[in-house]
């Protein structure tokens, strides 16, 4: 009997197999597979889930799983590039989350996609399989190059899935934008990856041979990194990698792709936002937290970007009319929280929120999907209303997710969000210098965002489910099948209770100790190790402050937001946001972030490329053609010598001879 340590790669390879099966069936036997290829996908993700749980249990025994998969490339006296599997507590946790969400999304898709008579289902399931495969290997990656590779593949799959309905303009455009914007971030990531290899000779995440530890040593011993001081070197490399994170996790200013990505099927949105693509960015920060923890500047930037994004996105969520748009901005905002938590040194807090968010956001998206099916593909919340009675299961689970999102006690989101805020304020108060100040600023952003979160969440709930049905489709909403309900229920339960694993204010810290499980194995990825690094290298100090205080403030703000929304939209909702005037314009247009980015692409880059093209045609090619024109022109001149009159020939001949004679007479000194 094989152990999980040996068959760990199968966690990711199973979905790949389902991809292959689905792809093969597209090509060779479109009618062979029932349900458009869903079955292999469900089986594969179920298998992944089982194996992930097995791995989780195994890791819980204190022994991480490490296995080299493939010697990818190597050169003598140079780097060895390998693909390997690493499952430590963080990875094990994430594996379970990803495979669970993926499994549930596959199941949900049976109701969402299949029931709606979509075409191209094989393609859909093939892409889902590839997506899951990529994400699972990304999670298990034991080095940063492998992480980058699967990070990119995740990007590809998101492109394919967002553009699933390629026959329409908008999804194709959104898919392009998603890939392009994240590619922009990945550019920095790749530079960072290459830089890390160049600086440390390895891309390993963990252990004393891993680059975070090597960087730590370099700082301790004052070795230069790539010709820079070690602190600067770490900061630069960290920032570069952060570029990829900001792109994938849709942080400001590279968040613009995410709302557009709503053009994809809602199931895909659930997968992308909850557990795969967007999560990948934050997961990467957590994965190499040992590196980020080395530089206070990096921490400050992460926290600030996170905090700002949390607030920034939350304000935009307030004015959106489409249910998926609201969820999209909430995703951006929530990932901002995670970044804030990690930047504030709250490794556990950030991870915790990542987990909780995966559950409740998957739940919310699937819930939204359920609403959308029920209302015959209506997205606009103003055309809904009063769905509570028609879709009870959806309503209650959606409500659970919303409470978690808004951070209302005791739903999961509350615990993790609170922990993030707590970590940022204590570290902000306790740490000297710029980092402390910036952390406090980030905290302020985060805290303010809590109010908006509560507001838009309950605005959404109210508009969708409460009040009277505002249109015929809302009137006619039909029920949904078991394949829709089952995932909702599972996720609803999880969204409600997942928070209980780490109730920091109550000193229940199972997650924290879980992340310390394999401390003995020398991976240097334990929460405990990170705390030491934060303290010793980045000089992050914690002030004493009771957790109850922040919890109370944030809960209060969340409730305030929720109640405000309830008052405004609870019954007989009006488009109150119109009263905001120019602010509504500003926020409604997403602060013109899209516009300037589109302008950068189409207003700057494209004209620049056209100018380059003109330059190329006129100048560079002009020189080439000019050389030939000049040659032919001189040819035409030269042939004119041949006048056709023999007397002229004689004259020229004689003249030539005389010239030669005179020349040589002078040179030879004949006179």
């Amino acid at each position, binding site marked *: 009997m094989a152990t999980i340590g040996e068959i760990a790669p199968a966690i990711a390879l199973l979905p790949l197999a389902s991809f292959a099966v689905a792809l093969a069936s597209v090509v060779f036997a479109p009618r062979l597979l029932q349900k458009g290829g869903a079955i292999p996908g469900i089986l594969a993700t179920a298998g992944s889930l089982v194996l992930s749980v097995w791995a989780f249990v195994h890791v819980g025994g204190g022994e991480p799983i490490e296995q080299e998969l493939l010697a990818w490339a190597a050169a003598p006296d140079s780097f060895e590039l390998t693909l390997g599997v690493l499952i430590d507590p963080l990875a094990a946790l994430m594996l379970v989350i990803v495979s669970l969400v993926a499994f549930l999304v596959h199941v949900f898709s049976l109701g969402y996609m299949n029931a709606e008579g979509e075409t191209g289902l094989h393609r859909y399931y093939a892409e889902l399989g590839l997506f899951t495969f990529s994400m699972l290997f990304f999670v298990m990656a034991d080095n940063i190059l492998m992480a980058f590779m699967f990070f990119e593949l995740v990007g590809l799959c998101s492109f394919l899935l967002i553009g699933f309905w390629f026959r329409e303009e908008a999804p194709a455009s959104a898919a392009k934008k998603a890939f392009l914007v994240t590619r922009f971030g990945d550019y920095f990531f790749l530079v960072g990856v290459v830089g890390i290899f160049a600086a440390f000779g390895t891309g390993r995440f963990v252990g004393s041979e891993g680059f975070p530890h090597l960087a730590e040593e370099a700082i301790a011993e004052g070795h230069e990194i790539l010709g820079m001081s070690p602190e600067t070197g770490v900061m630069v490399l960290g920032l570069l990698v952060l570029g990829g994170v900001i792109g994938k996790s849709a942080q400001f200013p590279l968040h613009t792709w995410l709302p557009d990505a709503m053009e994809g099927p809602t199931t895909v949105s659930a997968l992308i936002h909850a557990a795969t693509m967007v999560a990948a960015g934050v997961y990467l920060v957590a994965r190499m937290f040992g590196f980020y923890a080395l530089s206070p500047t990096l921490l400050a930037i992460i926290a600030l970007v996170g905090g700002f994004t949390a607030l920034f996105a939350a304000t935009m969520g307030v004015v959106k009319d489409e249910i998926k748009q609201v969820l999209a901005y909430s995703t951006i905002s929530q990932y901002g929280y995670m970044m804030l938590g990690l930047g504030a040194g709250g490794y556990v807090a950030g991870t915790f929120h990542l987990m909780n968010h995966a559950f409740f956001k998957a739940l919310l998206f699937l819930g939204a999907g359920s609403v959308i099916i029920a209302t015959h593909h209506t997205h606009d919340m103003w055309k809904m209303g009063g769905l509570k009675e028609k879709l009870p299961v959806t309503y209650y689970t959606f409500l659970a997710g919303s409470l978690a999102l808004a951070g209302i006690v005791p739903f999961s989101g509350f615990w993790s969000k609170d922990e993030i805020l707590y970590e940022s304020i204590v570290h902000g108060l306790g740490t000297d210098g710029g980092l402390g100040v910036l952390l406090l600023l980030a905290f302020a952003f985060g805290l303010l965002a809590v109010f908006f979160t509560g507001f838009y969440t309950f605005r959404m709930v109210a508009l969708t489910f409460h009040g009277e049905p505002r249109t015929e489709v809302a009137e006619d909403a039909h029920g949904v099948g078991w394949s829709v309900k089952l995932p909702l229920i599972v996720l609803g339960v999880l969204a409600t209770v997942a928070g209980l694993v780490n109730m920091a204010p109550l000193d229940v810290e199972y997650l924290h100790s879980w992340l310390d499980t394999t401390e003995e194995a020398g991976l240097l990825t334990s929460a405990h190790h990170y705390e030491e690094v934060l303290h010793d290298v980045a000089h992050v100090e914690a002030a004493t402050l009771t957790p109850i205080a922040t919890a109370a403030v944030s809960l209060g703000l969340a409730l305030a937001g929720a109640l405000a929304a309830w008052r405004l939209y609870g019954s007989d909702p009006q488009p109150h946001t119109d009263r905001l005037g120019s602010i509504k314009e500003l926020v409604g247009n997403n602060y013109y972030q899209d516009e300037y980015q589109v302008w950068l692409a189409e207003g700057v880059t494209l004209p620049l490329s056209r100018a380059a093209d003109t330059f190329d045609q006129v100048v560079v090619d002009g020189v080439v053609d000019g050389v030939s024109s000049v040659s032919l022109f001189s040819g035409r001149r030269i042939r004119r010598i041949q*006048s056709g009159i023999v*007397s002229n020939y004689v004259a020229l001949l*004689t003249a030539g001879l005389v010239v030669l004679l005179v020349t040589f007479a002078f040179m030879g000194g004949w006179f």
Partner: protein
Amino acid sequence: MVPVQWYLLLSAAMFCIGVFGVLTRRNALVILMSVELMLNAANVNLVAFSFQHGNLTGQTFALFTMALAAAEVAIGIGIVLVLYRNFEDIDVGLPTTMRW
């Protein structure tokens, strides 16, 4: 005894007159004559220096040159004849169907 340089000058003069004729005349036959003059300029040299160097090479070669000049004229006259037949003139400036 005339110094040998004078022969050289004589031949040079003959040669130049020949060249002048070739350059200025357009009648094919006159050009032919001018060329003969140039050839004979060479003959003057050959004979004079044959005497100067005390060997017969030059004089012998001069005989060859004369013979060849005659052959050349024979061919030349033939060509001038067909030239006349085709262009009804022996002005060498006329045939310009091929140029450039």
